[in-house]
């Protein structure tokens, strides 16, 4: 038993550190290699291959030919792509802002000592647990201009029937309504976590200084939960950007192309028109946009952390 040797364990801290320039010692490579292979196979290779496809005229069932940046140039003048880009931005902004406001309000409400608070919280988070396509089918029936329950409810208060997802002007706000219904609870949970972490002392001081409820919220609560709000913004933005199921199941991007986001357009180009070269170019541009947006959000997240005194 005493003869067991442990050669892989470094003799000192110095030995454990990577070599200068960040290189690992050769003896460590066998441990890292499997992970590198997996990352290379499932992340790196698909991306390199997607970029390669985007530089080719590549249609399923036809010969491929190298076209350089032609697919990217085509994107710049493709009105349907530009329109889908605008729809994506609009849908994302609304799908982030609405749950953020409502989720924060709900968190503030659930942070007070409401009767049946636990039960109400449980009911409130239920939409989040439902399957998106099932939700979409139910909402499609609810949106029906003649047979849907929403227009029936409006008629009870004297409001004329609306076309909801069946009209180009109202389709995106209607889809955002579904998104908001489902994801407001997520924001509520995140913000609730932030509220629980706020100490009572600043509120007591503000009370002595004669601050009203709005002032306490504006100058104490909001700055202190802003890092949590930024987390919610990042999660919701990523979620809204990649949203496909609900839009596809309810409108398939219609009426016309009024709710077609980049994801839906990409799906049509690659899997309905089988133009994988052009579809790949859309995917690459979309990926770059997401990276850019993520960097901006991460920067804002850090700023929010600094301004709330948490500079770490």
């Amino acid at each position, binding site marked *: 038993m005493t003869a067991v040797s442990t050669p892989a364990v470094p003799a000192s801290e110095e030995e454990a550190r990577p070599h200068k320039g960040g290189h690992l010692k050769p003896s460590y490579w066998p441990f890292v290699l499997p992970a590198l292979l997996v990352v290379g196979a499932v992340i790196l290779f698909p991306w390199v291959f997607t970029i390669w496809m985007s530089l080719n005229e590549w*249609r*399923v*069932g*036809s*010969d491929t030919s190298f076209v350089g940046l032609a697919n990217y140039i085509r994107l710049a003048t493709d009105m349907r792509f530009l329109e889908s880009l605008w729809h994506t931005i609009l849908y994302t902004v609304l799908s982030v802002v609405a749950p953020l406001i409502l989720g924060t309000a709900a968190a503030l409400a659930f942070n007070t000592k409401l009767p049946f608070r636990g039960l109400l919280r449980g009911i409130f988070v239920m939409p989040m647990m439902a399957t998106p396509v099932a939700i979409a089918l139910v909402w499609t029936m609810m949106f*029906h*201009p*003649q*047979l849907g329950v929403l227009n029936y409810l409006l008629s009870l208060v004297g409001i004329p*029937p609306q*076309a*909801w*997802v*069946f*009209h*180009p002007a109202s*389709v995106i706000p209607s889809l955002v309504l579904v998104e908001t219904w489902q994801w407001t609870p997520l924001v509520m949970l995140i913000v609730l976590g932030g509220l629980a972490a706020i100490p009572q002392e600043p509120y007591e001081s503000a009370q002595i200084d004669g601050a009203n409820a709005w002032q306490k919220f504006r100058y104490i609560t909001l700055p202190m939960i802003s890092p949590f709000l930024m987390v919610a913004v990042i999660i919701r933005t990523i979620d809204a950007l990649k949203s496909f199921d609900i839009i596809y199941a309810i*409108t*398939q*991007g*219609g*009426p*016309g*192309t009024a709710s077609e986001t980049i994801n839906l357009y990409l799906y*049509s180009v690659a*899997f*309905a*028109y*089988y133009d994988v070269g052009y579809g790949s170019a859309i995917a690459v541009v979309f990926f770059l946009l997401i990276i850019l947006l993520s960097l901006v959000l991460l920067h804002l997240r850090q700023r929010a952390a600094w301004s709330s005194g948490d500079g770490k």
Partner: protein
Amino acid sequence: MSEIIGKNLTRRNFLATTAAAGGLGLMGVRPAFANVNWKKFAGTTIDVNLTKSPRGELLTKYQKEFEDLTGIKVNSEMTPEQQQRQKAVIELTSGKPSFDVIHISYHVQKRQFEKGRWLADLSGFLKDANLTDPSMVESDFAEAGMAFAKDQQGAIRSLPFSVDYWIVYYNKDLFAKKNLAFPKTFAEMIDTAQALTDPKAQTYGFVARGQKNANTPVWTSFMLGYDMPSVDPSGKLMTDTQEAIDAAKMYQTLLTKASPTGVAGFNWAECQSAFLQGRVGMWFDGVGFAPPLEDPEKSRVVGKVGYGVMPKGPKVQAAATTGDGIGVTEASTKKEAAYLYCQWAISKEMGARLLQTGSGVPFRNSILNDAEVRKGVKMPAEWVDAVAQSAKISRLTLPVIIPVTEFRDTMGVALTNLLAGADAAAELKRATEEFKPVLERSERA
């Protein structure tokens, strides 16, 4: 004179065949399956790729009968239409598909499959008396069916399975209340639709698909009445001709002046719901959507529905036609066994079941006109009559091109824009210009 597909039938063979069929009939052998050596490929296993639809489900349900008849083992797979199309294209492009038999949508996939040379030529099998039942004669199939089945060189690449003619469903009660008769022409159709419309009572004269892509066949069906196909035989787009514009204006008038609110987002399901509620005078769509209308659990218009053939356009009367076929893959190493499956799928027995269960409509006239088969049809006789009459005036709804989906999307967006008040000529010109390079590229590749 009827003709066995690809082979002239002499008086001698006709008498011999009839005598043999009669004899076998007396012996209790099912006539439709009498002459073929069904057991020739016993022990073989074939893979079948079907779309998840009432047609696919019917084939799967009775698959055991085929296995008992032939001794061939069938592995069938059913996937939803969109996914099945994607899977088929990817596998067939690879050159090694995992299936021997494929169920295809002619109106979407015909040209793509021809260009890819993905389907085997069945012409030789159809001439082989050991493989093909003598009742399989070309004249028995609706003209559209054979047009779908043959490639540009006239080779038969698949067997026509189920046809979908576009007809006009109408609510007899609403017509009677306004003392109106079923329209005979396009002009009468527009007038009748407007006369039936009363938004205050939430009653509308007409409904049809407004959703992008799904709406294109509605418009191309109207174009057929103007004697104008969407793509001419030389491959030229006819979608910005005066006839196409007039058809688009008709679409615009009907859907903006006589249709329910929100029709721009309606696919067939929403149209069907509106009609089932008894609030719509006329609904224009495929015959395959009829069964729920006569189902008391789903419909408020049971017994009140009329089934009308598409009225005559300014130039001709035409019933727009789409359909399914079933074929053998070129890469299959079990082509004969796979062909037997296809033949069984479109046999009179299976065709009768298709019709009687409301799963579809066979392309074969001998089934549609068979009094015994008709007796078992659950739908009203008027529906069967509409189907039979439509068969006589059938024309293909959509162009036989590779990028059908892109065609439907591009034209569909233009049509949806019309519902928001856009100008028909300008929209169709834009859509045609947008689609022209796509079409050219597809045939060049």
